[in-house]
C-alpha cells in the first residue's frame, strides 16, 4: 500500500487536472493548446503509473485491489487517448465519448483508495 501511495497521488493529480482542464476549456477559461498539454501530460502519467503498478508484487490478499487499480489506470489511458483525438479532427464530441471511462476509473480508484488510505479525504 505504501508503494502505491505515490502512484496514487500522481494519478489523482493528473486526473483532476485533466478533468478540470476540460471544464475550464468549456467555460473559455483555458485555451485549446493548454488543454492539449494537460491531456498529453496526463496520458504520460497514466502510462507510467501502469508500468509502476505492474512492477509491484502485491500479497494475495491485495491482488484484487491491485487488478482493480490497474483496470482504472487503463481506463484513464483510454479516456485520454479518446479525448486527444479532438485535437486532430477538431470534434469536441471526443470529450463526451472519453467521459464514461474516466468516470468509471475514478469510481474504482475511490474504492481502492478508501480501503488503502481511509483517512485520505477526512470529513469536510
Amino acid at each position: 500500500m505504501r508503494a502505491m501511495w505515490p502512484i496514487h497521488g500522481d494519478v489523482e493529480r493528473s486526473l483532476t487536472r485533466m478533468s478540470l482542464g476540460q471544464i475550464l476549456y468549456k467555460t473559455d477559461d483555458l485555451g485549446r493548446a493548454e488543454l492539449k498539454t494537460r491531456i498529453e501530460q496526463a496520458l504520460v502519467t497514466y502510462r507510467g503509473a501502469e508500468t509502476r503498478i505492474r512492477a509491484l508484487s502485491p500479497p494475495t490478499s491485495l491482488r484484487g485491489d491491485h487488478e482493480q487499480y490497474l483496470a482504472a489506470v487503463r481506463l484513464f489511458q483510454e479516456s485520454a487517448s479518446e479525448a486527444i483525438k479532438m485535437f486532430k479532427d477538431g470534434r469536441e464530441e471526443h470529450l463526451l465519448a472519453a467521459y464514461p471511462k474516466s468516470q468509471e476509473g475514478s469510481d474504482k480508484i475511490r474504492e481502492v483508495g478508501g480501503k488503502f488510505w481511509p483517512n485520505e479525504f477526512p470529513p469536510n
Partner: protein
Amino acid sequence: MIRKLLRVAMIVGLVGVVGGLGGADVLQARQDDKEDHGGNQNNGEDKLPPQVLRSGFESTDQLLRDVERAETAPLYSAWIVESSRFMFVPFGGFQPDMAGLNTTVNLPVNVGIIEGPDGKITLYDSGWKQLAYIFDWNTSCCWKGIRDQMHAIGLDPDKVTRIVLGHAHWDHAGQLSEFPDAVAYIQKEELKQIDFFLNYPVDFNAGHIRAVNTVDPLTGAQVGPPAQACARTPVCGYPPQTIQEILGKVLHGKAKIIDGRHEVTPGLVIHPAFRGHTYGSQLLQVNTARGQLVFGSDTYSSWTGIRDWLVANIQQTDTIQQFLAYEKCYVLASRLNSFNNCVAAHEPISYTAAYPLTANWWNIPDGNCSRAAELILAPGKTTHVPASPNRTLCVSMTAPPHTVSP
C-alpha cells in the same frame, strides 16, 4: 533680473510645497476606495468595510432589494434530508470554541429539497456518493441515496431540474449523476480555486502543501495519511470522482458556471459566500411563507454558530468571510425569523426542537436511519410528514451494496 527670477521661483516652490501637503497630492481614503472599488459606486457603496472581498461582495442594500423582489415571487416548500451522518467527530475539531468540552458530536450532512409552485424541484447540494469510503473505512452512519429518500418522503426525484452546489466538497456534490437531466449551478470561483491549488508551487514547502496528497516535509518521501492527511490543505476535499461528477454535467450541457450573485428564478437567488467555507461557496435564498430561508451548506455548517457568532468547520475558510456570510443570512432573514431561517448543513442538533426550523422531523421509512424534516410548506400544499412519524433516533452502519468489480 536674476535676483527677481530667483525670488519668483522660491515663491512658486513654496506654494507648490504647501499645496502638495494640503491639496490634491494628499491621499484621500475616500478617493482610494473609489479607485479600488469603483465597480460598486453605482450601488451607492463607495466605501467598503476593510474586511470584505471585492469579489462576491453584496451590500446590505442589495441584499434587501433581493428580499423585496423575492417577496413578490412565488412561495416555495422546503425540506431537508440527511444524506449521511459523520459519527463521533471531536466537537473541537468542528467548532474550535467547543474544544474545551472535550466531547464528540454526530454531524448530519443535510441536503435541501425545494419545491416550486410548478412542482419542479431544486436540490441544494447532492450528498455523498463514496460508499466504500463511508461504510468500510469511516465512522459514518445512515447513508441512503437521495432518489430513494425522496421517493420515501413522497417527492418525485424525476422532478429535480436544478442542483445548486453550496460548494463542491465530496460529501456535498456526490450524486450529481443520479439526476442526469438536472442543471447544476456552481461558482467559477470554486473551480478556479481547485485548479490553482492543483498547481500550487512546491518550491518553498517541499511539496508539503499540495492538492491531493502530500509528501513528508523532512524526508521528501510521499507518504499517506494519517501522518500526512490533507485535511486542511486547500484542495483536499475534492477527490477526482467528485470532479468527474461535475465534468459530466459540463460535458452534457447541464451545468451553469456562475460568477457571483445569480437569480435562478424568481424567489430563488444564489448569493456568493466566497471563502465562507471554500473559495467558491454559495448560499441559496428561498422565498417561503416563513420569510426568506437561506441555505448555506458548509458556510453554515453550524446553526448555533450562526446564532452565537462562532466559526465552524474551518476548511478553506477565511473566518471573517464566514462571519460576513452569517451576516448575509441575518440581512436576508431580517424581516421574519432572523437567524432561525438559516439552514445549516452539519448542525449536530438538526432534527430536534432545539433547532426549531428542523423540529418537524421523522425517520425516513426504509431510510437506513437517515432523517427528513419539513421546513415549510407553500400555502395549499399537503404535509409530507407521516401521521405517526417515527422519531426514535437510530444509528445504522449497514452498507448498501457498493462493490466495483475490475
